[in-house]
């Protein structure tokens, strides 16, 4: 009888401890190295790719790979458009920082931010006050951003455009270097299908 009681007690103990995750060694042992992809304007981006074969992922704490990285072999799968990688620095087992720089003096690009939104870049269009770009992918919501006293950006559905301003605008974003974070959730950076200049009579 006593033998049975001891057996039952042990069984209960095993069940309780397993519920606490004590035996869940695999989850506890996963390594994490933070990843920072930074555009020339200091914005943290999310770009699909791998570091030493480990997929770059994102969560609430930012980008990371599930590996202890001591030296980084970075392969970005997503086109960077008007940017290119300038520098990769590694703090062993802690972080990998990828610094981007402009690769051209004129162009447009949409990229995702590390917190799951969108960055819109229009570089070198200072001589084109009003324009719009049609997207291949539909935006999940819409956004309006006053750029400067002469320009306003609208984004929604399949379009991002820059046109006349509305109301008082305090931003001073340069016409020739429009860099705007759009509060539009995205799991993929939409591709641009067509650029149109808007003329005003």
């Amino acid at each position, binding site marked *: 009888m006593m033998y049975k009681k001891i057996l039952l007690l042990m069984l209960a103990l095993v069940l309780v401890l397993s519920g606490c995750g004590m035996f869940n060694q695999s989850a506890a042992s996963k390594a994490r190295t933070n990843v920072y992809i930074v555009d020339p304007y200091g914005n943290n981006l999310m770009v699909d790719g791998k570091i030493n074969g480990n997929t770059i992922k994102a969560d609430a704490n930012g980008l990371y790979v599930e590996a202890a990285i001591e030296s980084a072999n970075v392969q970005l799968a997503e086109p960077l458009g008007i940017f290119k990688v300038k520098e990769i620095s590694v703090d062993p087992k802690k972080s990998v920082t990828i610094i981007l720089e402009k690769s051209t003096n004129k162009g447009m690009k949409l990229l995702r931010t590390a917190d799951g939104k969108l960055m819109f870049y229009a570089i070198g269009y200072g001589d084109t006050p009003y324009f719009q770009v049609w997207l291949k992918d539909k935006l999940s919501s819409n956004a309006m951003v006053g750029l400067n006293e002469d320009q306003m950006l609208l984004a*929604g559905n399949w379009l991002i455009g820059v*046109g006349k*301003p509305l109301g008082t605008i305090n931003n001073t974003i340069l016409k020739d270097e429009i860099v705007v974070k759009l509060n539009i959730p995205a799991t993929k950076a939409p591709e641009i299908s067509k650029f149109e200049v808007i003329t005003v009579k």
Partner: protein
Amino acid sequence: MKGYVRMILVATLLLLSTALLASLTISPLWPSGNTWKVPDKTGPTIIAKASGNMLFLSRDGALYELTMSGALKSYGQVTGITNVVAPATYFTFGGKNYITYVTAQGTAQNRLVVHEASESKKATPTSISSSAYGVVAQVSVTSVYIYTATMDGTVYQVPFDGDLGSAATVTVNAPVKIPPVLSKDGKFLYVMTQNGVLYKIETSTFNNPDDVITLGGEFTVPMAMDEDGYLYALNSSGVLYKIDPSGTERHAGTGLTSSDSAGVLIDGDGSVYVFGGGKVFVFNGVLTNMTPGGYSTGQKITTTPAIVKGTDGVTYVIVPSSASESSGKITILAFNPTVGTLTLERDWEMSSSFPISAAVGVAPVNALNGNYYFATATNDGTVYAWQFDARGPYGIWATYGQNTNHTGFIDAAASLFKTRIKLIAKEGFNGYALGSNFMGSQNYGLLYDATVLNADNTVASSKTNLRTNEEDLSKIPEGVPGSQKLEVKFATPTTSTLLFSGNFKDMMKGKNPPATDSEFEFRMWQTSGSEGYEWSETDNPATLTYRFNDRTVNLFTDATYTFYVYHKYPLTGSNSEATETIDAVFDYNTYKSNPQAATQGATATLDYLSKQWYAFKWNVYQWNPEAPNGLYDYDTYNDRDSISLPIKGPAYIEIYYAQLSSTITLLLPDFAYGKTRAYLFLDAATDAVTYTIEATTLQGITIDSVESAVFDSNVGGYNWESTVTTSNHLKYVFDSIQTPLPGTTRVATLALNLSVPQGVEFSGLNNESFERYFDMYGYAQLRNQQVEPEALRAKKVYEVNHFLYVVGDFNNDFTVDMNDWNFFVDKYGETVSGTDSIYNIGPRERFSGPTPNYSDYRAGILTDKTNKVDNLDLNYFAVMFGFVVPESERVK
């Protein structure tokens, strides 16, 4: 009027209406009155027979029949009989009628007697060892067994085959002062001794009585048995026992101080009635007193009452009582189980007392019209009988000896009280009962075969090809509640003519319209509610239980209705007409939760004899017994290629065609309010030579302008004669004969700016509804076309396009982009009017943005009255920004 006066009036009216609604209509049974004294005879038993004739057995063994014609027939007297105490029992065997009874006489030899109830005056007595109080008669086709038990503890089983045979006996070792009870299946006889020991005796062997249970007290009044075989016995101290013959019991004090001389009764709802000390109480099946106050007659209840059910739905109990040898009364009490009362309905005083033998009898005078009567008698030989609007005995044991014949067990064969189960077949769309009112006197309802089954599942009777929804009560099989069941089986669908008959058929066109238009067949039972079937909804055959009240049970049908379509073309000869029949099937199981979803389409034949036609007029007649004309709905439709009708009945459809020379199409947005863009097209057929477009706006809608008018170069480009006569009318004519069109051509496209004074939702409207707002006319004359005046017009088509108006698309390029934004910004903050009103785009009702799919877009209706372009408008623009109407959806 003062408040209290009004209250008194209302209360009085309520009381009066209650009294009127809940009362028995009672009248004397005989033309001569309600009494009939048989000379020189006393202490009788009355056997109430169907039709109103009754048997009268005097205490000294003289048998008479009192007939409704007023004749008193004497059936003789058995010698040596001096004291019959318990009621006699009546049975029929070998085509002859008998009563049987036992004596309880002090000095002379006691007897069990079988006395033929006829003027042949044959009676056969046999001796029994002591006084006895009641018999049981078990009758089959081949034999009769009579049971009794005596005060010296002897139980008799006496066979009878026209003569009494040798008795088998067993002893129960104590006096028995009440009649035995036979089990429902006849296999066991239950005998309660005076000192409370219940014995069970197997009737097939009739030996070794089994001592089932011993109860407390003395038992001197008859027991009752319920449908489940429980016995109810009342002792002389007023304790009521409910006994399971397997050997258990429960009991309750009734509040009675004695048991008087009346047996326990059970009504059709299972309520148990006990009588004693002049009082009446009613208990439920678990022996809870339902009538705490009971009812006191103030006299001893000296014989067993009877329970009946009034046509008013009230349960009544008829209670004879005696105050002294020369004083008695009959009291009719109304039982209200809801409030727990027994209230006085009627009473009559008598100048004599009621003997134990004169248990109240109830039988039909004319069961078909619902007239029953009750009868009892006083010690001085006077019979009392009334007919009334009540039926009975109402209950599994609602009179002495269970049934009017007093056979002493749950005896379907002896019961004169039968009930009916009325089956009501209904169609599923509206739930109309398929009665003769809709279907005629020949083919109403559904055909079914019926078998009445006894408790042992032997067949009592059977009939074929009965009809549900039967009004003739004689055609509804009756059964004995508590023991018989009704098995019904549906096999043959019922065909009927609901619409295509009489004057309507005379009106129908085409050769040989169908003779029948509807077919119904059983699908399932209603299984809920008071008119539901008690088992599985798809049972067929199905077994239904007879209850103590007539039942109505509903069932639902699948229906197949004929849609008879007559096509009329403007041709000569036999080609001018064509007909077709469409079977519209209402599958009850599919549509039972949403009958309105049951629809059947009818389609015009537009390609006929190698020519194109259009159906410019539809006349549709569909069966609807609730229509003002009592037979059908009538609707007309114009310019439809097809229609959809509810599957609610047969339909007759006339379609009139014209040769398709042109189509005039009005294209509208799904919502319109204020300035609204619309398009008008005229498409003409090959060989067309002249053209007309005409439109009138109604309901206050105006034509502000014709934005553009584009005409095909084949018909003169822009060289049409045109007239916009008023703000609500336009007309374009081209009647200079040109070269016939080489093919179907859109000859005119007009872009209209309408003004709609009140919001209108065009989406979902049918042609007839559109025509409340627009009166269109178009025409294209074909070369060599022979045209009937009625067909001298284009086919009219109304279309709705969700993208005719795109919120935020100010330059009408089907996109909402930065060009529109730049326009909008210029007007932001302004109060706009005229052409600038387009910038006032919000707020809107029923607006839906193009998310997640472009097809979700709905412009809705502008509700803003300020005409100010502000933040509310900006919100709508932001939602629409970046939207592009797909090429396929753009109006060209």
